[in-house]
C-alpha cells in the first residue's frame, strides 16, 4: 500500500537569541496510509505540535526545517512554491486546533467562515456554499444546522465550536486531517463525543487522521498506529494496540501508568496511586547526544549512560523502539 503521507528524516530547529540553531525535532520518520489514523503521543514540549506545523509549513518565524522530506500524495511539500502550498492547505490537508474558543474569527458567523473555505478551494458561489455548509454542519452533528449557520462563535459552546472547526477542516475534502489535541480544552463527556465524531467522519469520508494527543485512551480507541515522541525524538513506534498493551520503552510505560483505568459496570478497584514520571522534558538546547530520557529513566544502566541515543530498531514487524535495554525490558 502506498503511503498518503511520508515523512522522511525530518529535522526542525529553532534559531535562538544568538542565532544558533537548536534542534527541536530530530530524525523523525513516519508514514500515514490513506484512511488510517496515526497518533503522535508525548508530553508537552516534545515537538508534537511543531511536527504538525512543519507538515503544514506553518512553523513560527524562528523555526526552520533544516533537513528531511515531507511527501504528500507523491508531492514534495517542502519544495512547493508558496502559492501551491496555500492551495494545499485546507484542501489536501487541513488542521484542527486545540482551542476551539479562540480558533474561530469572532466577527463572522460560522457559516461565513466555513463558506469562505469552500469559496477559496472549490470556487462555489454564495448560495451553493451555503447549502454545502449546512450539509457539513449536519455531518458534524450540529443540531438545527439551518439556524446555527448564522450563529456567531460566541453563541456556541466549546463542543459546538470544535464541531464547527471540524466542519471547516473537512470543507475542502482533505486527504489528511491533522488534529492537534482536538479535545484538550473540552469537557470529558464532550471529548468522547468529538472522538466518536472523528471516527465516524473518517469512516464516511475516508480521510486519514494525524492525531496529536496525550490522551492515551483516545489513542487506544481511535488510532491504528502510534508514535511516541520524547524531546523531539521518536522513541517508540508501531501498531497502537501493540504499544498500548505491551509498551517497551520505559517512557511509554511511564505514560501508560499515568492513565487511570476505569470501566463502567465494574466494582471499583482498591486504591492505587497513579503513576508519574519524575522530572520533566529537557528544555531546548539542553538535549545532548545521549538518550534524551536518560535523566528520568528508572531503568537506566551503564550502557545507557555510555552510549548515545539508540536508533529506532524493530523488535517486531509492527513495533520499533529506541532503547538500549529493549530486549532486557521485554520481560
Amino acid at each position, binding site marked *: 500500500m502506498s503511503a498518503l503521507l511520508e515523512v522522511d528524516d525530518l529535522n526542525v530547529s529553532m534559531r535562538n537569541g544568538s542565532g544558533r540553531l537548536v534542534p527541536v525535532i530530530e530524525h523523525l520518520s513516519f508514514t500515514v496510509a490513506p484512511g488510517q489514523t496515526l497518533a503522535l503521543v508525548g508530553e508537552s514540549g516534545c515537538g508534537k505540535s511543531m511536527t504538525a506545523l512543519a507538515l503544514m509549513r506553518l512553523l513560527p518565524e524562528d523555526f526552520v526545517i533544516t533537513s528531511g522530506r515531507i511527501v504528500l500524495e507523491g508531492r514534495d511539500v517542502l519544495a512547493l512554491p508558496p502559492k501551491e502550498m496555500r*492551495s494545499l492547505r485546507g484542501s489536501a490537508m*487541513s488542521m484542527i*486546533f486545540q482551542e476551539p474558543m479562540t480558533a474561530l474569527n*469572532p*466577527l463572522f458567523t460560522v457559516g461565513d467562515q466555513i463558506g469562505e473555505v469552500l469559496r477559496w478551494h472549490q470556487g462555489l458561489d454564495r448560495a451553493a456554499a451555503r447549502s454545502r455548509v449546512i450539509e457539513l454542519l449536519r455531518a458534524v452533528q450540529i443540531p438545527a444546522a439551518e439556524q*446555527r449557520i448564522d450563529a456567531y462563535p460566541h453563541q456556541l459552546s466549546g463542543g459546538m465550536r470544535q464541531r464547527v472547526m471540524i466542519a*471547516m477542516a473537512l470543507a475542502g475534502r482533505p486527504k489528511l486531517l491533522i488534529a492537534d489535541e482536538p479535545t484538550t480544552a473540552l469537557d470529558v463527556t464532550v471529548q468522547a463525543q468529538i472522538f466518536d465524531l472523528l471516527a465516524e467522519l473518517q469512516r464516511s469520508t475516508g480521510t486519514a487522521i494525524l492525531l496529536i494527543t496525550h490522551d492515551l485512551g483516545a489513542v487506544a480507541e481511535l488510532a491504528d498506529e502510534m508514535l511516541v515522541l520524547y524531546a523531539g525524538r521518536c522513541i517508540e513506534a508501531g501498531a497502537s494496540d501493540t504499544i498500548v498493551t505491551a509498551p517497551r520503552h520505559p517512557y511509554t510505560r511511564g505514560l501508560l501508568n499515568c492513565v487511570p*483505568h476505569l470501566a463502567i459496570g465494574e466494582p471499583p478497584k482498591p486504591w492505587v496511586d497513579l503513576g508519574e514520571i519524575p522530572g520533566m522534558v529537557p528544555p531546548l538546547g539542553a538535549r545532548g547526544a545521549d538518550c534524551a530520557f536518560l535523566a528520568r529513566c528508572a531503568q537506566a544502566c551503564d550502557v545507557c549512560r555510555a552510549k548515545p541515543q539508540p536508533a529506532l530498531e524493530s523488535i517486531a514487524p509492527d513495533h520499533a523502539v529506541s532503547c538500549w535495554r529493549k530486549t532486557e525490558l521485554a520481560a
Partner: protein
Amino acid sequence: MTVIESTSQVSAPQTDLPARTAASPGRLALRQFTKSPSGVAGACMLILIILVAVAGPSLYPVDPLDLVGAPFMPPDADAWFGTDYLGRDVLAGLIHGGRATLAVGAVAALITIVIGLVIGAVGGFFGGAIDATMVKITEFFQILPPLLFAMVLVTLFGPKLTTITLAIGGVSWTSVARLTRAEFMRLRDLDFVKASRAAGASNVNLILRVLLPNALPAVIVSATLAIGVAILFEGGLSFLGLGDPNVMSWGLMLGQNRNYILDAWWAVMFPGAAIFLAVLAISLVGDGLNDAINPRLRRRS
C-alpha cells in the same frame, strides 16, 4: 485522561440557544453606543451640524462671499449674526462654510485612515524588513511638526481646498499607522488567524477578511477623532492665513476677522463656536464609540 472502555453513543447534544436573533458584532456595538448619553448627545449635535451644512445653503441662499451691507454691522434683524470686516453675512458664512470645513475634515480624515491603515497593516502583517521600512517611514513623518509641515506643503502648492485637505491628510496619519501596526501584531499570532492560514487563506484574504475587521474597532475610534483634528487643522491653517480665499470656511472666517476682534466680536466668535461645537460633537461620538466597541471595555458588560 481516562481510558474509555465503554463505547459511548454518538449523540447529538442538546445545547444552548438557537441563533434566532443574530447578534452581529456591529449590532451589539450600536446597542452599546445608544446606552452612552454623551455619545448620543454628540451624535445628535453632529447630525444637526451636518444637516445645516447640507440643507442650509438652499434654505438660506445668501452667497457668503457677497457684500450684503456695511462692514461690522452687529447682529440685528437684517443680518442675524452681523456682518464681517467686508460687509459679508456671517450667518451665510457659517452655513456655507460648514460644508467646506466638514468636507475638508472628512476627506482629510479618510486620507489619514487609508495611508495609516496601509502602512500599519503591511508592516504589522509581514514583519521583518518590510516592517522595519514601514516604521522608518512612519518615524520620518512623526519627527516633523505636523502643523509646520502642512504649512510648508500648502505654501508650496498654493492655498486651495484640495491641497489643504491633502496636506492635512498627509501629515497626520502616523498615529493611525502605529495603532494599526500594533493591532496587527497582536492579532497575527492569535489562533483564528493560524486557523485561517491552515485553511488555505492567502495573505490578502488574511489581511482584509481576518485581521482588518478585528483591528477596526480601535481604528474606527481614532478615525472619528481624526475628523475633529483635521477640522482644527484647517482652522489653524486658515488662521495663519493659509486658507483658500475663494471658498468660505469656518477657519477662513476666523483668520480673516481675527484682526478686528475688538470691533466685531461676532465675526470671530460665531465661527469659533461652530468649530468648537463640531469638534466637541465628534469627540463625544468618538468616546461613545470607544466605549461601545473597545473590546477591553466591552468584556466587562
